[in-house]
């Protein structure tokens, strides 16, 4: 059992959970993730580690409610427990002094971009962050991102905060203004990462994306998280989750991630019915 120490609401449907997991806290590096199973009948899902505190023996995960498991996680309060948490899994982000790095994140992806952006900043890079969200209420980790960025641009779809538009507009503008960019990191919805890759492909800027395929064991045993990179099948759990964006087949990933949509809908509906009958 892994105890929840703190649960904090960051935005509508988005919570930050601090979880006691001393072994993971000691080993976590930016870019890595955990797999959690909330309760005995639960499924296993991967979640990125936002931050680890080896002294306190805790890790933070940031969760957006998109299905039954994430909804259950976001109902947890301090003192509750998660049945299984395993990690840190995946390859850590590649951290070195590249020069100028643009860290682009959308929605809850900002929680995944944050630790890597922080490490890149610490390694001496000039970090320009572009944080996107649908609207003002959904912008998360603004203060944290500001702390680790030399420049921060916020975009919202509806213009309720920062600049109106998409993160890709911000990136395009930087390129058009002649900003020299050595590397781009993009974390967020698949369509966003794909759009970023299209832009930087033309400018030949090395671009890293953090992929989020459906996973099961997270240790390379099942191959369910296979993604096509440069036409080859790679396992996101052990070879990734970060890959060079220009080789990634995003359309196949998008399609594979929709494999269980019907089942997920059924699961959520059933869960809501059960909750109502308990009220």
């Amino acid at each position, binding site marked *: 059992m892994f105890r929840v120490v703190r649960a904090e609401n960051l935005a509508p449907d988005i919570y930050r959970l601090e979880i006691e997991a001393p*072994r*993971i806290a000691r*080993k976590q590096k930016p870019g890595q993730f955990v797999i959690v*199973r909330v309760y005995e*009948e*639960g*499924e*296993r899902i991967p979640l990125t580690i936002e931050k680890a505190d080896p002294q306190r023996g805790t890790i933070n995960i940031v969760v957006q409610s998109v299905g*039954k*498991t994430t909804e259950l996680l976001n109902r947890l309060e301090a003192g509750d427990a998660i*049945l*299984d*948490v*395993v*990690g*840190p*899994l995946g390859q850590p982000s590649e951290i070195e002094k590249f020069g100028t790095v643009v860290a682009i994140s959308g929605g809850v992806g900002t929680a995944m971009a944050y630790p890597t952006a922080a490490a890149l900043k610490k390694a001496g890079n000039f970090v320009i962050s572009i944080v996107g969200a649908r609207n003002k209420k959904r912008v998360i980790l603004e203060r944290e991102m500001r702390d680790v960025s030399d420049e921060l641009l916020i975009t919202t779809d509806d213009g309720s905060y920062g600049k109106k538009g998409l993160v890709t507009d911000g990136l395009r503008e930087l390129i058009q203004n002649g900003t020299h960019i050595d590397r781009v990191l993009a974390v967020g919805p698949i369509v966003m990462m794909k759009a970023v890759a299209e832009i930087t492909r033309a400018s030949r800027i090395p671009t890293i994306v953090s992929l989020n395929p459906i996973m*099961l*064991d*997270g*240790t*390379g*045993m*099942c*191959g*369910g998280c*296979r993604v*096509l990179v440069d036409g080859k*099948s790679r*396992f996101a759990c*052990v070879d990734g989750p970060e890959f060079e964006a220009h080789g990634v*087949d995003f359309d*196949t990933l998008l*399609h*594979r991630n*929709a*494999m*269980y949509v019907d*089942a*997920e809908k*059924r*699961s959520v509906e*059933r869960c809501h019915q059960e909750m109502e009958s308990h009220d």
Partner: protein
Amino acid sequence: MIDRADSAPNSLPRRERMKIPRQQMPEQPPAARATNFTEVNLGYGPELAAREALRCLDCQKPACMRECPIGVKIRDFIDLIIAGDYLGAAAKIREDNVLPAITGRVCPQEDYCEGSCVLAKKGESLGIGYLERFVADYEHRMGVVHMPATVPTGKKVAVVGSGPSGLTVAGDLAQKGHAIRVFEALHELGGVLSYGIPEFRLPKEIIKQQIDYMRATGIEFETNVVVGKTVTIEELMKEEGFDAVYIATGAGAPLFMNIPGEQLNGVYSANEFLTRINLMKAYKFPEYDQPIVEIRGKDVAVIGGGNTALDAIRTALRLGARNAYVLYRRSEAEMPARAEEIRHARQEGIDFRFLTNPTEFLSNGDGWLGGVRCVRMQLGEPDASGRSRPVPIEGTEFDLPLSVAVISVGTSANPVIQRTTPGLATDKRGYIQADPETQRTSRTGVFAGGDIVTGGATVILAMSAGRRAAKSIHEYLTTGVW
């Protein structure tokens, strides 16, 4: 061959013994079991077991014992069954085998003890596996599992992986008085026994029992630890005070076929398909949350001819598949699966297509699997494995409509530990190098065995590596000499 001393409990003359037919294993009828996950074999009762045991010829030099990879004293435990001492028989097996209820169910006896049984030369071999299972289950029902007392040595051993090899090492070393902690990456113990082998062949309850017995002897288990990620081998030895480590993480990574269409929805590795069902209980969706694609009324094929392939396709059948095919590129004679599993699968209505190899998975036009293109094969010259090499026959391609395909063509080495353990030698294919006698690796105090050393093999071979490793680890801990 002469009879043993007069004290042998079997007073029946040899000629009479040979007249007794092999006692049939009571089974669920095929039509019934094809729709449930309850165990196929129901097990001998005392009467059947006693009669079967009487068939043993009490060989002076029993070939069965010589062939057993873990050295179970087969003749001795059979004698105890004949004498009516079932608990004594179980204790006798436990001297060499910490998982008798499991090997009694899944060991390919026809390749070892039963394959070498003298009775098999003129008829059917002694039902050694069935008898082993009987005494192990009897012992459990009686609730008196005899675990030998031990004197603590003060030495600590970390076992990485709770599959058959890890459990064997843990059991053997605990009997020597060493403190054992087993680390498991998944949330459930048992390794391939839990995630790989289905309920209808090895009920989870049996695994749980065997592990509970081990726990009772003081062995500790820690789940959710991926050694190499959560903690390294070096940290286990330097910071957590383990005097030796045994690596038994299994083969790990599933092989795909590298043919077009493998990314289509509905194409699974056998590991994923079976893990969703066995470990995550997707067959109970939506009571359990982990889903699997719809199988009911669909056409499903497994590619491969091993036990894992048959486990997968028989699982699909139980989930309501309309057609359940085995596509195997060689012929039936070359199938690596246990004879009993092939027989059971056929009884249940599995459609075997031998000398058939997929060349492409076909889309239904919407990103989902719609069919598979196959080519017919013929057997050519023997290859490196000694089996005839299958060769495609030109112009024999045909398409088979399919909604779900399960690829079960083997595994490759999982690299997690090798990448994070400096100085741990591996072979060309990435498997850990270990001495075949002592299971020692290139790093002092570190031993390895099972599939992560040999590549995908069987439960019993993983256990035999565990036995050798336990002996060698004990020697190392006692003498301190590497």
